């Protein structure tokens, strides 16, 4: 095929490279307001990537991802304010709590399909939000939330200003992209895709579908929990309303808009959904109308998203054809 020679080094890698360089130097060119916008874009990009494991790769509709995000944020907030544990050391703790919570929640509902699972996850998200408002166990601070969360400290440097957060968040995003890209191209990533494509066939090919669904949920939740930790220390306050249903919808939408199951797609989605409304702030209320219309047009003309995933590449050794043809018995 033609593309084999042409796509050794696809043009899109050059575009990715340019984007990476632009991102690396962006805070030098932007004021602190726009840097902070990009910080939010980064947080949602990581949240989107974590949800992408569940929605994009495994095809499990999860509209309650904010619950896991909240678990991470509150774990960090509580442990930091009560025991003065440094925020960055709490990353594993938040990941663990959110992951364990996902395991307990998902275990009994994981056999549900499509819209049924979707409804249950919405319910879980709401339960968490309301439990937080009701000051469950007397440790979540009720509707006011928890304040006085400390800033992260990295190698003796206190991360305080927007551009400092920018690098913390985007390095975290870069690490996430790197690890998730590798995961996508591994046995684990393929297994998730098989169960998205056809669960019965996946099970019939020897894949433990129940395990992989749970694993996708737990890993996605754990990652969202870590983002929650960063968020808590960036805002210095967490409150239940930061983790409402709308947050889950945003995370879900940016995946569908950008390209389900595609890392560049999710990043693009985060920029469009979080960044664009800021750009069009001048249009005040009309911006949401324009945004909604754009979504409708998108779904009609490009339902697979703006940047759909590319097929994986495998190093297929090309033997000489004549040798192969003699072995062939099949039809073509």
């Amino acid at each position, binding site marked *: 095929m033609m593309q084999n020679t042409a796509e050794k080094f696809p043009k899109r890698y050059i575009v990715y490279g340019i984007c990476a360089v632009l991102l690396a130097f962006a805070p030098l060119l932007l004021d602190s307001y726009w840097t902070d916008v990009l910080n939010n874009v980064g947080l949602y990009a990581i949240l989107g990537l974590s949800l992408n494991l569940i929605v994009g790769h495994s095809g499990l509709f999860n509209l309650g991802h904010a619950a896991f995000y909240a678990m991470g944020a509150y774990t960090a907030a509580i442990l930091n304010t009560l025991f003065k544990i440094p925020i960055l050391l709490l990353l594993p703790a938040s990941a663990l709590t959110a992951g364990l919570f996902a395991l307990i929640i998902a275990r009994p509902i994981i056999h549900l399909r499509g819209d049924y699972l979707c409804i249950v996850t919405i319910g879980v998200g709401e339960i968490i939000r309301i439990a937080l408002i009701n000051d469950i166990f007397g440790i979540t601070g009720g509707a006011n939330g928890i304040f006085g969360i400390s800033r992260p400290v990295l190698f003796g440097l206190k991360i305080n200003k927007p551009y400092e957060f920018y690098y913390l968040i985007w390095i975290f995003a870069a690490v996430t992209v790197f690890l998730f890209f590798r995961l996508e191209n591994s*046995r*684990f990533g393929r297994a998730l895709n098989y169960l998205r494509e056809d669960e019965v066939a996946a*099970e019939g090919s020897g894949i433990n579908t129940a395990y992989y669904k749970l694993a996708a949920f737990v890993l996605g939740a754990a990652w969202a929990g870590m983002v929650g930790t960063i968020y808590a220390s960036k805002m210095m306050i967490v409150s239940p309303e930061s983790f409402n249903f709308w947050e889950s919808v945003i995370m879900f939408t940016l995946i569908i808009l950008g390209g389900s199951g595609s890392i560049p797609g999710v990043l693009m989605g985060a920029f469009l959904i979080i960044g664009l409304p800021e750009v069009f702030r001048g249009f005040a209320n009309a911006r949401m109308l324009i945004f909604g219309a754009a979504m409708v047009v998108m779904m009609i003309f490009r339902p697979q998203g703006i940047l759909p995933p590319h097929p994986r590449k495998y190093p297929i050794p090309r033997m000489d054809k004549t040798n192969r043809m003699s072995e062939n*018995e099949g*039809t073509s």
Partner: protein
Amino acid sequence: MSLLRLENLTKKFGGLTAVNNVSFESGQGSIVGLIGPNGAGKTTVFNLITGNYQPNEGNIIFDGQPIAGLLTHKIVSMGIARTFQTIRLFKNLSALENVLAGCHCRMKSGIFGGMFRTPAQKREEREALEQALAELDFVGLGEQADVLSSNLSYGNQRLLEIARALATRPRLLILDEPAGGMNEQETDSLIRLIRRTQDRGITVLLIEHDMGLVMEVCEKLVVIEYGGKIAEGTPDEIKENPRVIEAYLGTEEEDE
């Protein structure tokens, strides 16, 4: 020696008895055909063997171990692989990736190995790729490795399902109407493929309506009608069996 033994297998769906007290054996290395009119319960028997359904009564013994009640993926890892009557490929993935799905159960690496590309994980991926390509070559789809599976012809999609099943390194291969939708030429090469599978030491159990294929390739036939076994024997015995002829053609008295 029998590799697979069904003992008094019964499956009911509500009031309907889909499989009624069926027993038969598949000898190690043999090719056994399961035939019968449409709706006789053949595919249900396959679904019972592969754990898609749980039997109401009876035992399934594979290599001396009872497997009824186990989950499908566990049964696959014990060495039983299958293809589906209605083709169930992963449509949006390449032929190669479809076959890699079969390799999955013989691999070990998980999230950590995938994220950090440990040496063991890399070796495993390389071996799986080699095996998947070898299976594609075995069924004759070596040149189509990077073609999207939904873009393959109908006959080739059936072959790809066989390659995916073979990639699980089965000892028993279950084929549900492998020649469905194939032309004569394709069926001929399928017969050769089934024989070459047998040469690899793999026992084959198949459902097929193409009597030419069944009579040529199978050493033993089991005939099912209305969920119950009505005959068992060599193709020549089955051809002469009055019960079987009746099941397929009906009796003259019925016409009155």
